[in-house]
């Protein structure tokens, strides 16, 4: 019995021996159809570029917001379990006020 590693190597070797298909030229009318579809699509405007940027900015802002929320929620928990941290928080608030 042969191990499957040898089987895979032999199989892929055999597959590589398959004749390469001839490189076809574009079918008649293909390039014309593609170009017509490209031309019918409106060119990118300033507004569309802004939309794309705004979407990315919005995603980034949401990520920052979630991160801030997570940080905010983690701080009181830590303070509650750690009396020194809680005391430090109280002092900070007192100083700020």
């Amino acid at each position: 019995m042969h191990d499957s590693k040898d089987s895979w190597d032999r199989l892929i070797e055999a597959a590589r021996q398959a004749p390469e298909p001839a490189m076809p030229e574009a079918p008649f009318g293909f390039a014309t159809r593609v170009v017509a579809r490209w031309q019918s699509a409106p060119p990118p405007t300033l507004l569309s570029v802004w939309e794309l940027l705004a979407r990315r900015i919005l995603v980034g802002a949401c990520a920052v917001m979630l991160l801030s929320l997570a940080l905010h929620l983690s701080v009181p928990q830590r303070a509650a379990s750690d009396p020194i941290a809680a005391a430090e928080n109280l002092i900070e608030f007192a100083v700020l006020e």
Partner: protein
Amino acid sequence: MPEEKLDVAACLERVRRRDEEAARRLVEHLYPLVIKIVRAHLPRRVAEEDLAQDIFLKMFANLEQYRGVMPFEHWVSRIAVTTCLDQLRAQKRRPELRWADLSETEAEVLDAVITSEGEAHPSQGMAAREVVGKLLEQLNPEDRLVVTLLDLEQKSVAEIQQITGWGASLIKVRAFRARQKLRKHLEILERERRHA
């Protein structure tokens, strides 16, 4: 004329000015490259011409982003590969390949590579490629892409980096993992063959 060598840079300049003739020539020039990639990674049930058309439309839509850092053909290859990858991701994985799913010639070639110490006969190349194609459909799209490029098309890791934009170590890890999965599938087929 297809025999005439196309000045890609000059052609791109005209395409950016929305010159239709230049755009047509660019599509005709790149068609063999694009269709080769599409055929190598064609997801099931997707017509190759439709996929090629999508790739060219993406190429035109993103033309402003091409900065000339790499050859234009490499840039288009990357669009073609990522488009095929997106299509593959959208498809459901094919159910596990069974010995009974193989055609007579495919079973013969697999029988030859499993039982024989030697190599399969060159005339069995097409059948072997069919079997490899069916086995690759068992993998996830990224693994499938790496094995196709590395083992079937014998591209170097550096070339695959250029085409996919992935790091060398990621490509090597994916190839290693994918080959392990393929060998496992072959083991299953081998067991089924013994019981057939």
